[in-house]
């Protein structure tokens, strides 16, 4: 979803700074899993606002519908039946989608200038018109979010409704949520709101209730209130300590500029060898040694 903006903080495959004159408030979406009833209104609102319609799938006996994220489904409710304690079944429903990391692995991995941008409000957005379809964002993402369309071979994911947020509206999923499980505002406000919810949950016996705002990716702009904050993996394998894979870091960090330097040095070494040592020439009729 492209949005012309002064408020771009980081841009994929760009080695110089983005315009930084203006600053915007850092925003966040807070998903309180303890309030979610799994109605999928957020999925419907996402489809409606973004004009998307996934193919009709097959029922394989689980509530997850569609089964997975796709170019058409930017958010999916993931249902987990877990027995946290013996004999106490809990149904944990996590709204899955892009976490809008402060340190986005997708943006770091992307080779195409401006195909992925991060706004100063924290939203990470794909600009599909610059996407070349290489799939590197998939290797960079610690949450397994971007999906390549089978139709146009471009990568898609949740935009956090950057087009709505840009004009002062909340994301479509937030607007539609009937239980108030999804709220939106400044990141500071959302952390404050979460603290109140966590206190409440602790009073109700969820002693490990916690905010999910993982530091490994610099924090996220989609955060969860988890009843079992000590075991995020209960929630359809939400990673406990997500981070950009060291392989992606290795490959996108200082290594590549150094490798460029190496290639340049090799060419210069050849040139200067030629102008100092000179070519290796043999006389046409060389005497035998």
């Amino acid at each position, binding site marked *: 979803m492209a949005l012309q903006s002064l408020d771009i903080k980081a841009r994929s*495959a*760009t*080695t110089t700074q983005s315009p930084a004159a203006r600053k915007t408030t850092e925003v966040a979406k807070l998903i309180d899993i303890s309030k979610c009833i799994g109605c999928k209104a957020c999925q419907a609102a996402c489809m409606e606002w973004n004009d998307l319609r996934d193919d009709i799938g097959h029922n394989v006996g689980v509530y997850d519908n569609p089964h997975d994220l796709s170019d058409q489904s930017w958010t999916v409710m993931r249902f987990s039946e877990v027995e946290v304690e013996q004999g106490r079944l809990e149904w944990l429903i996590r709204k899955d989608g892009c976490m809008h990391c402060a340190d986005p692995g997708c943006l770091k991995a992307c*080779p*195409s*200038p401006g195909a992925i941008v991060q706004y100063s409000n924290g939203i990470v957005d794909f600009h599909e018109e*610059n*996407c*070349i*379809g*290489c*799939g*590197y964002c*998939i*290797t960079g993402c610690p949450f*397994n979010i971007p999906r*390549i369309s*089978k139709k146009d*071979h471009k990568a898609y994911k949740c935009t956090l409704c950057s087009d709505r947020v840009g004009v002062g509206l909340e994301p479509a999923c937030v607007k539609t949520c009937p239980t108030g499980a999804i709220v939106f505002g400044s990141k500071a406000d959302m952390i404050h709101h979460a603290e109140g919810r966590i206190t409440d949950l602790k009073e109700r016996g969820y002693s490990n209730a916690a905010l999910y705002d993982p530091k490994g990716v610099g924090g996220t702009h989609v955060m969860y209130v988890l009843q079992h904050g000590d075991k995020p993996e209960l929630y359809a394998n939400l990673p406990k300590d997500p981070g950009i*894979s060291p*392989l*992606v870091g*290795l*490959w996108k960090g200082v290594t*590549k*500029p150094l*490798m*460029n330097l*190496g*290639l340049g040095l*090799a*060419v210069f070494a*050849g040139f200067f*060898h*030629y102008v100092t*040592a*000179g*070519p*290796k*020439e*043999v*006389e*046409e*009729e*060389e005497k035998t*040694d």
Partner: protein
Amino acid sequence: MSKPIQRYTARERSNHWVVAIAFILAGLSGLALFHPAFFFLTNLFGGGPWTRILHPFIGVVMFLFFMAMAARFWRFNHFTAADRQWMARIGDVIRNRDQGLPEIGKYNAGQKYLFWTMVVSIPLLLLSGIVIWQPWFAPYFPIWLLRAAVVVHALTAWIMILGIIVHVYAAIWVKGSVRAMTRGTVSEAWAKHHHRAWYREMTGK
């Protein structure tokens, strides 16, 4: 004027140049996606998506023709005692002090190292390339393998490009070499000076 000596047949030369052209195209399109400094190279291939589409096919052409070429030259690339002596004097070779170098066959140790580097690199590039090939094959591999393959692909390509920079420079540096791959022949003096054992084999002198 002594008679030129045949070093490469027309088929061998064509094979070499198919690999060389494919290498240049794969190299330029690959560098375009390797680092933003080279992204402008996508313009040579019709833009970013076309670069992504074409690069793997060019790579497959390079692999197939390289394997054919490797099969042709395999038997000339086994290391010998003379190669080890030559390698021990690599400093003199680089300073153009060639007096008293051991008699070597069709290829010297440097050429043989390049050959084996390519024999290892090109299949590795093919395998790692298939793993990350969008949209055809990448969706079938686990994410950890994709992440590893991207690193292997970039590192191997880098080693290969470095090797080819040396290869091209050596051809420019050692006068009389380029015609071996363009016309197919080298002068008797060239053969006698650089590849004496091969010269004896070819001429019986």
